[in-house]
């Protein structure tokens, strides 16, 4: 076990965990931030996507001892009132079915739009290909990303 001071959503959180613990479980089990989802545990589905210094990363394969003083943002910290343009676009298009993958989809989309403010369909497909939606809401995800890009 070791003590880590983690910058998450603008605050410093101290945790005492095994250094090999993935951030996914630090967030969920230790800090009770449940918005980051467990899907596969091997970085293949995107449900656990968080931002590390603004980059989208898979928290299930990002270990706590690799974080240092890098800034983590989770779905809970994306906006104060759930009104980030991407979150609003998701609601506008009523994207979710079961909704389980959507925090990860949103986190990937937000990071992507920073680099590609006016994305083409192909760029969206490439960027979002690592996030599985088992309910099959892909066409709505694409529309929501385009709406968010405009706003």
């Amino acid at each position: 076990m070791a003590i880590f001071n983690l910058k998450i959503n603008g605050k410093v959180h101290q945790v005492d965990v095994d250094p090999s613990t993935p951030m996914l479980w630090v967030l969920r089990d230790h800090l009770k931030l449940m918005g980051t989802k467990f899907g596969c545990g091997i970085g293949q589905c995107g449900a656990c996507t968080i931002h590390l210094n603004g980059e989208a990363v898979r928290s299930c394969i990002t270990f706590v001892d690799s974080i240092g003083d890098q800034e983590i943002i989770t779905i809970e910290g994306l906006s104060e009132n759930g009104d980030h343009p991407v979150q609003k676009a998701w609601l506008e298009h009523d994207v979710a079915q079961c909704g389980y993958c959507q925090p990860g989809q949103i986190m990937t989309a937000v990071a992507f739009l920073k680099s590609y403010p006016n994305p083409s369909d192909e760029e969206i497909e490439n960027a979002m290909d690592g996030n599985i939606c088992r309910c099959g809401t892909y066409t709505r995800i694409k529309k929501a990303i385009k709406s968010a890009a405009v706003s």
Partner: protein
Amino acid sequence: MTTAKIIIGRRSFIKSMAVAGGGLMLGFSWLDSYKPGTDQELIMPDEWFKINAYLKIGNNGVVTIMSTNPEFGQGVKTSMPMVVAEELDVDWKHVIVEQAAFNPEIYTRQFTGGSQALRQGWQGLRMAGATARQMLREAAAKAWNVPVTEITTAAGVLFHKNSGKKAGYGEMASAASKIPVPKEVELKEPKDFKIVGTTRKNVDGDKLVTGKPVFGLDVDHEGMLITTVAIPPAFGMKLKSFDATEAKAMPGITDIFSFRTYKDDYERNFFDTDAFTELIAIVGKTTWEVMNAKQKLKVEWEPFSNTSYQVGGFGGRTQTIKVPDGLESTSDHVARMKEAASKPGRIVRQDGNPEEAFKNAAKIIERTYTAPFLGHFMMEPINFFAHVTDDNVVVEGPTQAPEFVERTISARLGIPVEKIDVKMTRMGGGFGRRAYNHYATEAAVISQKVKAPVKLVYNREDTTRFGVFRPTYYVTYRAGLDKNNNLTAFHVKAGGIPENSLHANRFPAGAVDNYLAEGWTVDSNITVGAFRAPGSNFMGPAEQSFLDEVAETAGKDPIEFRLDLFKRAQENPVGKNNDYDAARYAGVLELVREKSGWGKETSNKNRGVAAYFCHNSYAAHVVDVVMENDQPRVERVCSAIDCGIVVNPGEAANMVEGAVTDGIGNAMFGEMTFDQGSCEEDNFDTYRIIRQKDAPKNIDVYFVQNEIAPTGLGEPPFPPVFAALANALYKATGKRYYHQPFIKNSF
């Protein structure tokens, strides 16, 4: 006005009768089971007035409507309360939706499966709203001393026109809650609907996009331990012995022990399908710690011998299920199906003289279709919370079948159902898998043993490996055409492991003079169960691919060919028990023909069409494929659906889009294979689920407009899209696609 036969739940019967003036009057007894004040399920704040089990009204006019069914993405948490709100006549903006717990004393059919929620809930939900509205009107009539017939309502306000009096529902809620439940009540005409038929967004939308804890895996309670289980590595294996010394010494681990999910003499119910009944529990403080400790367990597994168990069937019948021993592989399955298919099957339906008709046919076409086992791969891994004390049991988590959770736990722990509380969380997908709730019982057994609240969490690999797969299927179709290219004989022989998917009374039964349907099965120890549109998810694809080829052989347009058959089935049906309405079936084909511009010059000539009926609804698709670097990509899907009244069109369209995408994904990629009883694919790196780059570029959904009471939507659009895709791929590549998954077997 459409009237439906109404039977709601096991406790209540509602008779319906059309009355002069066009309204539907309902006499009913179903609310009698609810007695105000005795319901412990919902604790009212002081300012709430409970009108019935489905709704309460605050003194400010805000209405809480209970969502009674389990939500797994099909949208019932929004659509079912919309129906209540419609008849209550309130502004949807003033409605709060709350998930109800399982409570068979006051709610009916709290089950997700078979696309039945709105179909079976429709009249009951309407009456819940209409009854409350009637009680509010009576309260106002009493307060204003005027006849109740003169009280009207609009958007949560009561009016008396002659005196100019008006009052919000909140002002009358207290008085209304004391009015006796009316014996009959008038329901709205569909043309007067203000909420039903308009798009209302997901009531959990805000929570989902902000990451609020709404799923089973998010459940967290004071003093809760985390547990996971070790399961046999293969079907056909069971626990022999284990050594937990090293694992127990791992940080955070509090307990490791083996347990049995069922008692030895337990008669299982239909949803107790379960290959692995003796497991090892690893209990500890955090998820990562228990998952790590599991890696350190030293376990010996051994093959089991032929066995059997009792399953309580429907109607009190008990069935014996045989489980053969052995470690099965996909290559064996293929060989065993081929062998079984070569022998006579069990004849389920015969019309005319098929043998003679085939003898006289000018052309005979015979084709065999196959599909592999499929895994559900719902995004949220298996989990459930349980807290068992000496006094009661609380379980909470994702389940499609809370009634069976309660029953099985009751039998296992010997605790009466009255002392078991089942709470339903939003499910991160289900697709049928979460009707099989062995994991809820496992959590309860573990909680009882460790005397603490526990949350059971499976990793992804074991979520897959625990099985309950879609069976593998095999079907041979044979069609006979006369010299004028009329379909004169049709033969379907359907098999599978361990079930077949034969629906003998479905189209084209009823449209062909000489028809033969037979089936066969092969035993297996691989557990199977419901998977989105069970059975139909293979028969639809196979039948509709076959008919495309038959139409081509007959030199007819595939839509025209089907419409001719529906005309026959409508005008002069063959045989009895045909389970479809030929006019509605034809209706979706006509609508998809119009909306897709079928037969007109388009830039894309790689089009395929298919239609299917299952779960009481009709669906047709036209799929357009383009080839990009020799790989197929779906450019557009045009869907036409007849599911009666569409309660929430926007979310209904979302459901169809999802079913289309899911169908294309499973048709192209879905495949669970076995080697010596062990799953060869157990996570998203090996099992291919459709992703953004494979998804259709556009999906356009159209609904047939009618006033028929709603029927299912989660399943019906799924089966036909496989076939529309296969038929489009044929146009694109010149090859027919007989064996799923198409990508592996063709590209």
